[in-house]
């Protein structure tokens, strides 16, 4: 096994993973900068970069609409949009740069850490429950979320909240983390026996990077889709 290069810093009694935080910050800055750049000089007739932005917005709005067909859906457009863009950029970041000084990795995919994905999933879950309470009131929310279609299913419904949360986070984490591990393993293989392994490892690495780009996009889509499905379970009346 190899060292994952995490460095823990204690601050205000909280422990921070430096690599994770720096990578997350870099991702956030990239996302904000790109989105702000794309949204400059908006026009009625879209051209160039505005088309890209509008395509992404249309895409995530489509995800929201397919999960929450009622008028409620329009409230979650921004959440779905930002989740999608953030996770997509986070997934690709580790494929483009791995910034390592000494033993410490400073930049990698933030989504290759379970803390990141658990935070995002937690946020989605909390938002979904708040939305449910907002929509139906507390009584209606409990009835709609936990006691339908029949009260007997109550324990399973409670359990489902946790499995939803855990699977949503760990699916994303597992995919991206595995991708990065394999990239590192191929890299180690390339270094192991000089030119003999370097040459066959090159195309292997390239193929796997391409595949990881694909996986990163798919996982971003899956995360957003499931997040919207979980929200829709809380805000839509179950038939």
């Amino acid at each position: 096994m190899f060292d994952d290069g995490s460095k823990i810093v204690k601050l205000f009694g909280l422990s921070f993973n430096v690599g994770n935080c720096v990578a997350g910050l870099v991702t956030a800055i990239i996302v904000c900068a790109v989105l702000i750049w794309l949204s400059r000089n908006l026009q009625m007739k879209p051209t160039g970069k505005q088309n890209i932005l509008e395509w992404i917005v249309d895409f995530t709005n489509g995800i929201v609409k397919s999960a929450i067909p009622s008028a409620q859906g329009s409230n979650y457009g921004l959440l779905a949009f930002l989740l999608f863009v953030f996770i997509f950029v986070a997934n690709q970041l580790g494929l483009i740069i791995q910034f390592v000084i000494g033993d410490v990795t400073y930049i990698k995919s933030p989504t290759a850490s379970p803390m990141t994905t658990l935070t995002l999933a937690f946020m989605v879950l909390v938002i979904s429950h708040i939305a449910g309470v907002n929509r139906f009131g507390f009584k209606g929310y409990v009835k709609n979320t936990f006691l339908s279609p029949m009260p007997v299913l109550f324990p399973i419904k409670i359990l489902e909240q946790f499995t939803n949360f855990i699977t949503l986070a760990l699916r994303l984490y597992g995919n991206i983390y595995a991708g990065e591990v394999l990239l590192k393993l191929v890299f180690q293989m390339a270094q192991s026996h000089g030119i003999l392994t370097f040459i066959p490892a090159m195309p292997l690495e390239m193929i796997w990077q391409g595949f990881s780009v694909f996986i990163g996009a798919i996982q971003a889509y899956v995360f957003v889709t499931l997040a919207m499905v979980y929200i829709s379970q809380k805000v839509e009346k179950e038939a």
Partner: protein
Amino acid sequence: MYSTFLLGDAGVQWGDFLFYLIMFIIMLLIVKHFAWGPVTKMMDKRATKISNDIDSAEKARKEAEGLAAKRQTALENSRTEAAGIIDRAKQNGEQQKASIVNAANEEVKTMKANAKKDIQQEKQDALSSVKNDVAELSIEIASKIIQKELTPESQKELVDSYIEGLGKQNGNR
């Protein structure tokens, strides 16, 4: 390796949790203010504009249809009018032709009649002059015959005088 798992030897990194939560919320606000808001506003504006444009296009299409119908009827009217004008012109031409021919016929008739009259006149004149001549001749002949039935002397005298007269006539010529 182990610290990447949730319950590693360093414990749960709650700092990361808080960091991501706050960062995501800040990102949400920034993106909403700078990118999402303007873009969705623009898209909504475009949607309303497109629906308005479709409505106005529908209206314009209806108007154009009305105009086309009007133009069609006007065209038809003008066609019938043109046909009427041509018919009338033809009739006029026909009439004119007939009147010209009639006038010509008339003229020819009058000319013929005039010519006939003239000829008749000439003939009459010629006949009357011939009649006069004949009368004169017959009178002359009669006078000659009357003179001949006189005595031989007188007859001789008559002949002589006649010859003389002839001679005189010849002499005069």
